[in-house]
């Protein structure tokens, strides 16, 4: 009787233990299987904060894709390494809207039981503009993120993640301060080695892109990115140190995202290496941390539909319309064939714009050739193996031998000018190359109505240090594109006025 009841107790206990184990197992499996982005009803919010799939995925032990650490770590880093980033992510040019913990351009997605963060299109394609130094900034979606120092950002995130101070305890201690909530499952992952695993992944990433982060290549500075060199290392595991040093100098300006519909079929990217909008979009997504297996095609498609006909904001200051009309005549004879006219903002391409979206040979355009040379035939051959066995496989990339003529919609917000952002204002661009500023500051969002562009002679303001751009540094040359530089001062003034209407 006694033995029987003891047996029953043992049996019942075993049953309860087994049931708990099964429940925990089911809980873990469900937690790991969930792949759910934070979604937004308004497409503008989706653009700013929605996911394109750039968060890590596939496997906890061998995570695929992603550049950023989990949200809990990402939000804690500025407090853990304050001396590396006084002023937080905003000081690097990220835009933090009131009431938001994460900046514009950073999405959240639960994958593998973790609330991950990733970069999206808005990180590099949203900027701010101010009427005067004391005016509030206006956020413009789709404009180049001319204020963002992406290179320093990646450098900070990798270095601080690897810092000895970044521990489980330090990250969890920050949660209450940042107001970030994590699930019980994620908390358990922190207990069971999430941070050491993360450091290993970040170390692998840094080993690959290391030569682009330190001082081995000229600084990208605010508003610029080296599009293809990180991709060579991250996607294909090329040892960058073995490439010719010149090839690693590829920094160029972020472009605007407006009006993609009339751009279909044009040669896109600065060197015109791709004529498919969709493929170009997907390629840019790879740069944000997407991979062929973690990509969120629906998230990208939603952005694509929106930027298809998105117009740039109109020039908000006074325009002398009589002067602009005069300028239009000069423009027609000097610029229109390559750049189309002011009606491009409405999707209209003037029939005379026969060379818009075409590539001009480097010998003719004579701007800095580093960006052109950073894209090689060998690289294109490797790109054809991206998105293998899928309808998304890359087929449109081509090595070119010059730079593409781009439409100028919203050109007032697209400074500094030329592909490498080597000329601060449109007025400077209309001067012969040797009379353009030899050095200036990038990243200030105060608008210069006189010269059309951003204020470029102030080294620091409002807690931000601007980037001193030296045109003597390799990759930074301001030579070439000397069209319109021999016009009379009056004709130049009129042309400048007309360009404000774009």
């Amino acid at each position: 009787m006694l033995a029987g009841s003891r047996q029953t107790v043992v049996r019942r206990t075993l049953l309860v233990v087994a049931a708990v184990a099964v429940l925990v197992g089911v809980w873990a499996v469900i937690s790991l299987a969930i792949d759910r982005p934070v979604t937004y009803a308004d497409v503008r919010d989706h653009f700013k904060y929605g996911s394109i799939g750039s968060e890590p995925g596939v496997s906890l032990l061998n995570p695929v894709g992603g550049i950023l650490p989990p949200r809990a770590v990402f939000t804690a880093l500025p407090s853990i390494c304050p001396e590396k980033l006084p002023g937080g992510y905003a000081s690097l040019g990220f835009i933090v809207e009131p009431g938001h913990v994460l900046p514009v351009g950073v999405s959240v997605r639960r994958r593998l039981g973790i609330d991950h963060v990733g970069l999206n299109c808005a990180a590099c394609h949203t900027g701010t503009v101010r009427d005067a130094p004391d005016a509030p900034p206006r956020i413009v979606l789709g404009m180049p993120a001319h204020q963002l120092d992406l290179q320093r950002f990646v450098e900070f995130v990798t270095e601080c993640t690897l810092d000895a101070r970044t521990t489980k305890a330090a990250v969890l201690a920050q949660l209450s301060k940042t107001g970030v909530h994590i699930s019980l499952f994620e908390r358990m992952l922190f207990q069971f080695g999430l941070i050491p695993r993360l450091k290993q992944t970040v170390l692998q990433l840094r080993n690959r892109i290391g030569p682009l982060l330190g001082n081995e290549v000229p600084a990208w500075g605010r508003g610029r990115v080296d599009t293809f060199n990180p991709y060579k290392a991250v996607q294909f595991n090329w040892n960058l140190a073995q490439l010719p040093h010149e090839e690693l100098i590829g920094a160029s300006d972020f472009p605007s995202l407006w009006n993609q519909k009339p751009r279909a079929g044009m040669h896109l990217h600065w060197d015109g290496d791709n004529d498919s909008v969709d493929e170009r979009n997907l390629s840019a997504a790879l740069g944000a941390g997407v991979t062929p297996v973690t990509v969120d095609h629906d998230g990208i498609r939603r952005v694509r539909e929106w930027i298809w006909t998105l117009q740039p904001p109109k020039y908000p200051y006074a325009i002398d319309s009589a002067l602009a009309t005069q300028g239009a005549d000069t423009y027609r004879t000097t610029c229109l064939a390559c750049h189309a006219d002011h009606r491009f903002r409405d999707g209209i391409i003037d029939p005379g714009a026969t060379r818009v979206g075409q590539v001009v040979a480097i010998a003719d355009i004579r701007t800095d050739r580093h960006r052109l040379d950073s894209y090689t035939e060998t690289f294109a051959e490797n790109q054809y193996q991206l998105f293998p066995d899928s309808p998304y496989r890359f087929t449109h990339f081509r090595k070119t031998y010059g730079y593409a003529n781009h439409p100028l919609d919203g050109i007032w917000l697209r400074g500094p000018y030329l592909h490498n952002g080597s000329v601060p204002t449109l007025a400077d661009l209309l001067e012969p190359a040797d009379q353009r500023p030899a050095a200036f500051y990038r990243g200030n969002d105060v608008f210069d109505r006189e010269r059309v562009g951003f204020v470029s002679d102030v080294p620091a303001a409002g807690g931000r240090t601007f980037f001193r751009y030296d045109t003597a540094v390799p990759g930074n040359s301001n030579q070439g594109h000397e069209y319109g530089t021999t016009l009379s001062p009056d004709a130049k003034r009129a042309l400048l006025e007309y360009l404000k209407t774009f």
Partner: protein
Amino acid sequence: MAEIGLQNGWRTVQRRRWIAIAVAVVVVVGGVFTWVEFFRRVPPPAMASDEENFEYGSLGNERADGIPYWLWLVLPRVFPEHLPAPGGYAAIGFLSQPGRELPIGFSKATIGYERVALNCAGCHMASARLQPDTPLLITPSRQPQTHASEAYLRFLIACASDPRFTAQTLMAEIAKNYHLSASERLAYRLAIIPATRRAILRLTDRPVLIDHDTMKQHADASKVTRVDTYLHSLH
């Protein structure tokens, strides 16, 4: 008693029948799995022209000489140090045409799984750049112009000799590019990766030279004839 004995006998018969059915199911399922994963031959896509056939067409040697496609794709990314320079297969001299997934000289065919093999164009192509900052011109050539094929074999041998040539390492890299199905993962992990490694290492027993006779032995005679005829039609 007799009744019980009869019942026992009946149970034994029944049990044996179930075992037989189970064995049959396992054999059939295993057979179908093996056939689908390793032997099913899918006709390769037709080539538009003799030139395209020369550059990308199958010689029928994928079965004997082919490298499983997913391994072929990731080997340069897992073992870049075994290539003379960064650049994947282009770094050992293979040429590519715009938009083509495989460099000239590689064919792809499905025999159970997708396999990639060399064809004649791997060597019999010439290239020239007439002026700087202009595209490379590529043309078929009767005389072999590159040693890419031999460099390719050397690369494969270096990879297979590397202790990191394991299912774990290679599957992790494949997972960055494609979601293999559970059965494909099983086939790759248990059979395809170890078998490929052994097959490549067998190459080390002989000199690494492209030997036309061996190549023709593994290939389909009619396909070789088509390519031969094409090469001889060139000026």
